[in-house]
């Protein structure tokens, strides 16, 4: 089941949020794409890094 993967769910969630926020915050097509890509990377990479940071507490 794809939806049972937390990583995939998080990536899908980030994608939806990025699309909506980019359409709200930016007007031009090019800047929308750039802003959406930036937000997406920020959310996904940030979540992965934070996940590894929390992993330190389990050691």
């Amino acid at each position, binding site marked *: 089941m794809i939806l*049972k993967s937390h990583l995939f769910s998080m990536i899908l*969630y980030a994608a*939806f949020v990025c699309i*909506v926020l980019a359409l709200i915050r930016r007007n031009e097509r090019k800047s929308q794409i750039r802003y959406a890509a930036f937000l997406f990377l920020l959310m996904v990479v940030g979540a992965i890094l934070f996940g590894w940071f929390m992993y330190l507490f389990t050691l």
Partner: protein
Amino acid sequence: MSIKPTDTWKHLHFRDKETVRQTDSSARVFSPARKIHLFLGSLSSLRNHARSPPNGFLTRLPDFRRNFHGNKETYPIQKPLDLASHFFYYVCLIQMNVKSINCLVLGWIIPGLGHISLKKYWKGIIFFVCIYSMAALGLIMEGRIYSFQTENPLTILAFFSDIGNGFFYILSRFFSFGLGNLKNTTFEFGTAYIAGAGLLNYLVALDAFDIAAGKKE
């Protein structure tokens, strides 16, 4: 001619004795030319208000103590045309706010409908697809749609984010879906999807409101 520059005499600088005498008396009789001047001023303000209606929800209120030159008048402006122009101004204000509030409510009930009513079809469709996809995925993951309850204060926040889904939330109350399944591993993510969809819909509805009110292009 000796005029003391006190507060009550400020407006009488550079005027002749006749004007001083007229203004000093409580009758406030204006010459025909002055009346025409004031009348034109009223027309000008009326026309300006008609041409440039307020462009936001909280716009500047009209200054009743300014004439059409933008200078402060010292006599009370209570002319019918001035009142009419201000009435027209407020009618414009109310009309624009009614339109923007309509967009806000439409955008809240169905995601993207506010934008579609503003003829931004593609944006509206994308918002609808994204937000309802998130809500549907949340339901597939067996997330929970919270109703208002005070037993656990944190669920009040979840309730407020869930009602952002508008019609979807109302349907969930009538057909009792979105009860959630705690045993499922995807329960937390499903709940987050539904709450996130609601919060995004708030932003989308507010965006439609801003566009309708002229605060945003």
